[in-house]
């Protein structure tokens, strides 16, 4: 832990998650003096690799890299900063109890009935076209309505033009399905329950919704828009923490000063303008602009304080839906469990336990009433198959995303943690009967743990629910869009902003551009 080198910077960034690091890099490259302050002892926020059992390391938050657009990776030149992929183009396997697993995604061709195969091809093409039309939206601040600003008008016109260019049929379909629930849409198009389950999982993963919740088509489109419709998955060598390390190196190389173990106590305000930060250590740093990578509630309610904001705005922030429903289970395995009906290549990808869409909806039912799913949906990776260094020789790591595990568990997470761990092991064990015998150690991160470890209020991946009312032009809330806040000099750059979380990095880049646009 070292102190800031200077007393004043052009920009101080609160939080060293991937968006904070991306923002710092762009600002520093533009010649700004930048100080990034991370509260934790390591950088990366929820994109981090750490030990969870002696000798076993895992990507503790996000465990796959698939949302960061190739353009951003190129611009940041992360390869030159040490980022290597352990595997790319990984497939997805939807696990079936009868061993007839469905291999899909990446370069895989799923084994389906001819009707489903044709529907699936059409589906991928349609989503690909829509995703390609929506993708540019992620690359810029969302426009505001009802302003005279030329940038807002042109952004709206560009969006309109891109949608128009989809053509009558696709646009009609987009307008029809855009706010639908994924369950109904999948019912229209497919027969295979396993296929529908797997596709529904992508629509609800990380959200507080079930497949029958309205808006789940939108969340799927959104996820695909980030990748231009591609569902190829990558695993960085060294886990997601390697991405953060490369981002940190890029930021430092660009000239940004990056400090860890430097929690910010509050944002300083002078004459109704953010003018710096006070550190928990007592030191103060002054800044031309303060940019917060922290979630909106932490930024506005804890770091800034309601007294600097209007009451209506504070109420909107307080009402922002920020409760996560996704848990993360890490298993230290003394050997690779025997998954029935899967070859080694398939095991390298992600394994889904989502046998059908109703299974997911039933899993979601529990979350509505403050319970964890008795039969949860799972997204599993075995990163040691492509990156053996994460575990001792011959031993393995399983990284499991578990849904649904509500932030507010009625019975409390003290006892619930072990019971949910057992349920997940049994659920996955149905496909690998010797799993329980392989488990040497386990760690379950429920949303309250995610809140504590990563400093995300509510423990939600996206900082704030990705739903239509907290989306795009109104994300996180009206009055704090376009990375701006009601307080001059204070900006946001985290997942709570458009276009949201996942290890995407676009919020950080867009925020940097907005800051440079506004503060010459």
């Amino acid at each position, binding site marked *: 832990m070292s102190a800031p080198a200077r007393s004043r910077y052009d920009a101080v960034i609160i939080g060293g998650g991937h968006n904070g690091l991306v923002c710092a890099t762009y600002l520093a490259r533009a010649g700004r003096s930048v100080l990034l302050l991370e509260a934790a002892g390591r950088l990366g926020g929820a994109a981090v690799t750490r030990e969870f059992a002696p000798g076993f390391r895992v990507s503790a938050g996000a465990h796959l890299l698939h949302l960061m657009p190739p353009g951003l990776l190129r611009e940041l030149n992360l390869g030159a900063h040490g980022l290597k992929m352990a595997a790319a183009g990984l497939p997805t396997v939807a696990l079936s109890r009868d061993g007839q697993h469905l291999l899909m995604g990446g370069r895989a061709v799923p084994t389906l009935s001819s009707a489903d195969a044709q529907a699936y091809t059409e589906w991928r093409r349609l989503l690909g076209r829509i995703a390609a039309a929506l993708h540019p939206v992620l690359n810029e601040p969302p426009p505001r309505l009802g302003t005279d600003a030329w940038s807002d008008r042109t952004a709206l016109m560009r969006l309109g033009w891109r949608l128009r260019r989809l053509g009558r049929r696709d646009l009609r379909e987009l307008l029809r399905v855009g706010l639908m629930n994924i369950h109904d849409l999948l019912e229209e198009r497919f027969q295979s329950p396993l296929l529908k389950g797997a596709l529904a999982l992508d629509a609800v993963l990380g959200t507080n919704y079930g497949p029958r919740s309205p808006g789940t088509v939108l969340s799927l489109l959104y996820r695909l828009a980030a990748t231009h419709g591609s569902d190829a998955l990558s695993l960085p060598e060294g886990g997601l923490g390697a991405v953060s390390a490369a981002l940190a190196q890029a930021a430092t190389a660009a000239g940004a000063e990056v400090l860890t173990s430097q929690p910010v106590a509050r944002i300083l305000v002078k004459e*109704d303008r953010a003018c710096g930060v006070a550190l928990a250590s007592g030191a103060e740093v002054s800044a031309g602009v303060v940019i917060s990578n922290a979630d909106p509630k932490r930024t506005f309610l804890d770091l800034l304080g*309601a*007294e600097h*904001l*209007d*009451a*209506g*705005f*504070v109420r909107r922030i*307080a009402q922002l839906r920020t409760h996560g429903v996704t848990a993360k289970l890490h298993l230290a395995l003394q050997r690779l469990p025997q998954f029935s009906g899967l070859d080694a290549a398939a095991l390298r990808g992600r394994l889904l336990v989502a046998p059908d869409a109703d299974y997911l909806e039933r899993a979601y039912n529990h979350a509505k009433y403050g319970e964890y799913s008795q039969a949860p949906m799972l997204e599993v990776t075995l990163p040691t198959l492509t990156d053996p260094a994460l575990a001792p020789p011959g031993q393995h790591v399983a990284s499991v995303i578990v849904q649904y595990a509500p932030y507010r568990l009625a019975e409390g997470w003290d006892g619930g943690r072990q019971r949910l761990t057992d349920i997940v092991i049994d659920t996955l064990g149905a496909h690998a009967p010797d799993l329980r015998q392989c488990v040497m150690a386990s760690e379950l991160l429920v949303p309250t743990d995610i809140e504590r470890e990563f400093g995300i209020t509510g423990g939600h991946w996206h900082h704030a629910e990705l739903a239509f009312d907290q989306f795009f032009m109104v994300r996180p809330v009206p009055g704090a869009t376009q990375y701006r806040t009601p307080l001059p000099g204070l900006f946001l750059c985290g997942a709570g902003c458009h276009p949201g979380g996942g290890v995407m990095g676009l919020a950080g880049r867009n925020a940097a551009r907005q800051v440079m646009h506004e503060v010459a």
Partner: protein
Amino acid sequence: MSQESPHFRQPLLRTPFHERARALSQIDRFIPWAGYTTVDVFSSAEQEYFSVRNASSLFDLTPMVKYRITGADALRFLNRLMTRDIGKLRPGRVAYTVWCDDAGMMIDDGTVFCTGENEYLVCTAERQLDWFAASAIGFDVRISEITEEIAALAVQGPTSYALLKGIGLAGIERLKPFEHGNFTMPGTDGAITLMVSRTGFTGDLGYELWMEPADATAVWDALMRRGSSRGVRPIGSQALNMVRIEAGFILPNMDFVSAAHTLRIGTERSPLELGLAWLVDFKKGHFTGRRALLAEQQRGPLRQLVGLDIEGTKPAHNALLYTERSGRREAGSVTSATWSPTCKRNLALAMVDAPYIATGSLLWAEIYLNRELVWERRMVRARVVERPFFAPARRRATPPAEF
């Protein structure tokens, strides 16, 4: 406040003064006000009006919504909520203030009583719990609605001081405008303690009495008994409306609609537009609506509430205003109007477009007259004049004169 029948059979509450008021009501004109039934006119609005300006009047203001604000952050909370600097308000003082939404548009106006360190009483026209609760996020503050716990009676008029002294409120002569204090008066079962503030809605010498509901009738009876020689008279809302226009005071739903209730875009009003810029303290630190109001101040007003002196004697209720007699171009509209018997002027408050808000501007008011169901339209001169229209020196004198 005993309620014999269920609330759905009698949706309007009765104030502790209700039985006394009903006994004195000659024409049975009651109107609902903030969930209570209250007197609109006892006998004749004009007679009641003259009791305010020439003698003493009693007005039951129990329905005023009252909140007690306490807690370590009570002052910080109020300062972020209100446009005025509540930090300057010392215990024993009262301040008139307004509060706005994020867009700087008026939600309500009211009075803040500082009753101790981080202890305040806030009186409002309409219920505010929702907005106060939103404003309390992030503050250590306790807000209790105590409307039903306090009976309130306004004693206003030139003889009001003599009347209060007459019922035995020792020390009342020292109470200055916008001060409040606790006073005792003899009652049949021992002394009655009242909080008295030298405040009011009449622009005249006057007081407001705040008491336990159980003491309400005893206080009323003492005032009526003692006041017979001082010309005391209970008054209803109509007479109050006449005097408040003379005093230049605004009323929600007459001169503005709360931004919490407006549905149409552009019908909300800012305190700057309502001529209340003197209540907006940009230097005290942040408060809700400050950034929007600052931008409005820099941009300059689009419209403003002004006082009008209108030709003739017919009140210009709801009149549209024009720049020329021809009525080709509108310049605003009248929000409140009355013939002022004391000023002998035809007065109005009007929301007027920015080019015409300067004192002395000449506008034309379109007045419709009902002559036994034969309607006539008059275009009369309306000149922008200073407010208040009526501000007698006696309202500020301490000790007040005994008329």
